[in-house]
């Protein structure tokens, strides 16, 4: 099971890096979204994937009986999903607004903050 998920995670990373290498900001955005999911899968796999019982403690016991699934990665992944989704939403709006204002989604052309023809500093009085 771990092997299959590891290969899947690798594919996610490869896809996200390929997309992030693009000059077009919308592809970079998709790449970042997939990167977040790749990392979430990594956390999940790192918590050991076991087909065991859910982590529930029976009424009569103080500690779980037998082998149970690891609940912590799920808590971590849940936190990370919430965070990465909110960032995705923010970035989507930011990208759309900058496309509206600057009129391009090519990062090479987005030179508002660092204009190409910026003057050199004065060399003397």
């Amino acid at each position, binding site marked *: 099971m771990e092997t299959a998920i590891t290969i899947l995670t690798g594919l996610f990373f490869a896809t996200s890096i390929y997309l*992030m290498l693009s000059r077009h900001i919308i592809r970079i955005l998709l790449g970042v979204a997939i990167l977040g999911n790749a990392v979430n899968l990594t*956390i999940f796999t790192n*918590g050991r994937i076991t087909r065991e019982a859910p982590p529930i403690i029976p009424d009569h016991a103080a500690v779980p009986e037998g082998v149970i699934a690891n609940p912590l990665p799920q808590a971590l992944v849940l936190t990370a999903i919430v965070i990465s989704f909110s*960032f995705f939403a*923010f*970035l989507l709006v930011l990208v759309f607004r900058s496309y509206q204002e600057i009129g391009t989604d090519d990062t090479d052309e987005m*030179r508002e*903050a*660092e204009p190409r023809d910026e003057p050199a500093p004065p060399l003397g*009085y």
Partner: protein
Amino acid sequence: MAGKTDYHVDLAQALVLKAPAAADYLVVAPLVIGFLFGAICLMSRKNTDRQPYIAIAGLVLMLAADLGLFWHVWQNGTVVMTMGRWLPPFGITFAADMLGATFALTAGIVGLAGGVYALRDVGRTGRRYGFYPFLLLMMAGVTAAFLTGDIFNLYVWFEVLLISSFGLLILGSEREQLDGATKYAFLNLIATTLFLLAVAYLYGTFGTLNMADISRKAAKMRETGPLFTIAVLFLFAFGMKAAAFPVNFWLPASYHTPRIVVSALFAGLLTKVGVYALLRVFLMLFPVERDMLAGTIAIIAGATMVLGAMGALAQNDIRRMLGYLVISGIGMMLAGLALGSETGLTGAVFYAVHSMVVMTALYFLAGIVGRRMNGFSLATAGGLYSQAPWLAGIALVLLLSVSGLPPFSGLWAKVYLVKASLDVGAWWLAFSILLTGLLTTIAVGRTFAFSFWRERQADDGEGSEAPAGTSGFVTASLVALTALTVAAGLYPEPLIQVSDRIASELLAPAGYVDTVFPPQGPQQTEVQSQQ
């Protein structure tokens, strides 16, 4: 369920039974205050007249809590508090050692200065769009990042301060800002995602996320776990957050675009969180890996400081020049991390505190200069000395301080760093530090000569001799920060003592670990081995 409790649970195995001392609550006080006042500011978002006072009250309280915490840690050593009273490593630990407390205190000072400066700099529109809530939440995030003892929690605080910084960065939504913010947001988000990736492997290897727990288990895992890989991932992720060469290009692309007070706070706080995380992770969790990576870190440090200073030389816009100086300063701190000796770390910590204060003050200064000159271009600058001699005095102090000339605070940090480099025979690192000092002096000296000494330029479109006078709030925050660098320069002994103690604590993390996990009797150890 309550009726079926026919088993006995020994709470001492799972909970901290002793109530923490009242003073220990200071560990969480700064972020509680930050979130509380941030929420109040958010609720009174439309009341733009009252909101600043709420925010300033919050920032003052935060600074008071930071001061109290600093004093408490200075007197009693590392202070630990565990959420939900669960015994570590199960509860999320907050642990303030001298490093965290000092950085939190400096952040508190810088944050308050920024809040006061913003009283004039951020108008009604900015307030309505939530400047103060974002500021308080960012301060809470930064302070919590300095104080947390859990690495996943550190990731969460990184995200908290990152999303607040996005809000501050795009306040105003001008074309420049949107462009800068896009690059800033993407690259910083990728950096924190890579940090999370490193945390994932750390969890897979150790099965714990508590930093003290990892620190004490690292020695055993070194044979089998991929610790070197994890350490390199952390170096990359935090290096990107700290704007170390060659992953620093988001900083000069974005730091000059927002309002000047936002730039000032970013320059003072955000990159230093990356430096803090590097110090914490490499000295506490991966000391052996740090030794293996020392050469690499030293090359990164040298390149960052020299290229940062050269970037500053090439800029016409004062704000962009300051952005490169921030990067150059990061190189200095990384040099201390690369050296790893007590002298080197003392220098790095001293430099970090110095840089937080001075870089913020320099951006404040740039704001005043820009307002008086109707722009930030060196080509059209001039005539400020005759207009405001007092401002020229302050500018001279800050510019000398950032280039590390006596008698201001930058000098002492560099003395320590150069000495530490020469101690281990790294003459080229010492040379880079001194070369950076020279290049920085040229860059800032030129800024001073052009904007203060030179006659006012005739082609200055406005030509009117009556620019808006500098408001009292703006002056007060600038003067306060300048006074700090002068004080630390003329009487460096207290700050050197603090930095020295931080360095020795960092080099002996056992003290920190023992505070989180008090040495136990045989019974408790048995319980632990059963888990």
